[in-house]
């Protein structure tokens, strides 16, 4: 049957194509192996990039929340002290500020209160942290008063973001 010229031609063409195909396949296999390695590396880099994106998105999200506030300045600490401590003098008070981005600064307020009721201190802290933008208590030292009676000497450090 292979004497049939059409069939013979088909066999020859098929054989030649198979041979070419086999050579191409071998070369392609090598190329695909290299492509596979490239793709795996790229996916790994992309995964790392996604991690950075998630990280940055957390920071940018936090910033956007503050940036979207209608009042961008925290309540004055003097007002809060007056409200909760009455006329009781503050033994020591220091205020510093540090510039951040796009008009925002971080304000730091340190104060030392002598012989105060802890209830008043907790009310002050709660009020300060309830504002928009809020003050945040970043450090506190409570020393029991020798006289007792629920009073103590208290050092407080607050921080707040201030969008001037």
């Amino acid at each position, binding site marked *: *049957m*292979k004497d*049939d010229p*059409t*069939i013979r031609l*088909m*066999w020859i*063409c*098929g*054989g030649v*194509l198979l*041979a*070419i*195909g086999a050579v*191409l*396949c071998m*070369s*392609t296999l090598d*190329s*695909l192996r290299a*492509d*596979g390695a490239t*793709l795996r*590396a*790229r*996916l790994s*880099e*992309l995964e*790392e*990039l996604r991690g*950075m*994106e998630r*990280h*940055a998105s*957390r*920071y940018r999200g*936090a*910033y956007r*929340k*503050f940036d979207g506030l209608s009042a961008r300045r925290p309540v004055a600490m003097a007002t809060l002290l007056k409200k909760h401590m009455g006329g009781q003098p503050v033994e020591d008070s220091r205020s510093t500020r540090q510039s*951040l*981005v796009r008009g*925002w600064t971080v304000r730091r307020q340190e104060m030392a209160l002598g012989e105060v009721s*802890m209830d008043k201190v*907790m009310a002050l*802290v*709660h009020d300060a*942290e309830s504002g928009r*933008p809020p003050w*945040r*208590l*970043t*450090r*506190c*030292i*409570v*020393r*029991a008063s020798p006289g007792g009676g629920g009073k103590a000497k208290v050092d407080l450090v607050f*921080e707040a*973001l201030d969008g001037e």
Partner: protein
Amino acid sequence: MTQTGKGYLQWAGTCYGVDLQDDGARVVSAARSRSGVRCTEVRDARLSRLGDGAVCVGGLSARESLVRWLEAPYSAIDKAERVLPTLLDIQLPFPLEDCVFSFLDVIRTPEGTTRALAVAARKSDVERKLRLFGDHGVDPVVLDQEGVALWSQSIEERPPGGNSSAGRVLIHLSGARSVLVVGRGTGILGVHALRAGDTGQVIRMLHAQLGVRDGPTPGEVEWFWSGPGAEDGVAVSEMQERLQKEWPGRSYVHEAPEYFLARALATRALRTGPLRCNLRGGEFTHESMARRARGRARAAAAVVLASGLLLCAASPSARLISGRKIDAANTVFKTTAESLISGPLGPAKGEDALRIVRSELAGETDSLEPFVAAFEPSLSDLLLAVMETGKDNDLRYEVVSLGRDRIEVRGTSSDWNSFSELLSVLGVSEKHLRRKDAGADERIPFSIVADRGR
């Protein structure tokens, strides 16, 4: 062990088995069914009426062909197959080139040789037989060897009993075309043209083939009868009586013996089984078989051609797909990277691009750190919890110092074991707890100092 082969008309659902007798043709119509092949005798058959499309099977008689066992001294079948024609040539009384031949049942022996059943016929005999069929208006698609066909059909219709090495003799009584087939169990040993009624020839052949030197053993030979002559019970009995004197054994007449050969030819062509044979090959190949063979060859060539094309096309396609995947990954990478930085990424790729993004984000996140810190849990919650715990567990604090990085709580307790809640509130383990023996006021001084992660 006998090899099985496909019937030569596996592609056909039906066929006619044609046994040309001197007094007319015996024809059966065979149809493949689930249980095998169903044969129906076509009585008073006028062969020309079978129609042009009828697929017919004929046979070459023992006088028109020969059957020989050959043994090649090789255990490798492919090697043996190369020398079998030469071995056959030696045994033929005429040149091999003038013959059509086929090797059936090529098997390896335990002795390390290869045995094959050779079937051959002179081309002139094949031509003559085809002409004879043509005169009857039949063009057989397959030309089987009648002796081999009779043997395999006899085995199929009446398989050997328990003794698989018992001699088996089939006598096909058909006038001048009578045949003697000798074997053991299911294995064929020889096929011989038989002179009508010549029992002496049968006995001589049995001695030669079954090789029993000390005389026959009763029950070792089973006799089978077929052919139009087997319809004559008296004639069979007379022959049997003469033969049984030398070779006693049970005797059976096949069913419908007159049509036995036609049945054998048709059944073998349709079904898979042992010793399948077609001597209508080479230049004598029937047009329909040639057409099918051409079709198969063309289909095979088309498959090879298509496979070649597919293989050639597969490579560039695979490269294209792979390249596109890489391009897509690069695009996603670049888009994501550029969304994280203020300007374009430029030609930087991979690690270089990651370094640029990492460096730019580091500056940005440092400046935004206070915005994130604002959402972290406040120290006021901890201070409140420490104070509440002190009240609940009778702890008197001297100093409570809470910062982002460090905590320190000092004081006294009325109970040695009342710190677990405070430790839990502070989120530190017991190893950070220091206790001293109770003083004069029976209170236990304690201190907890620990660094805390933010």
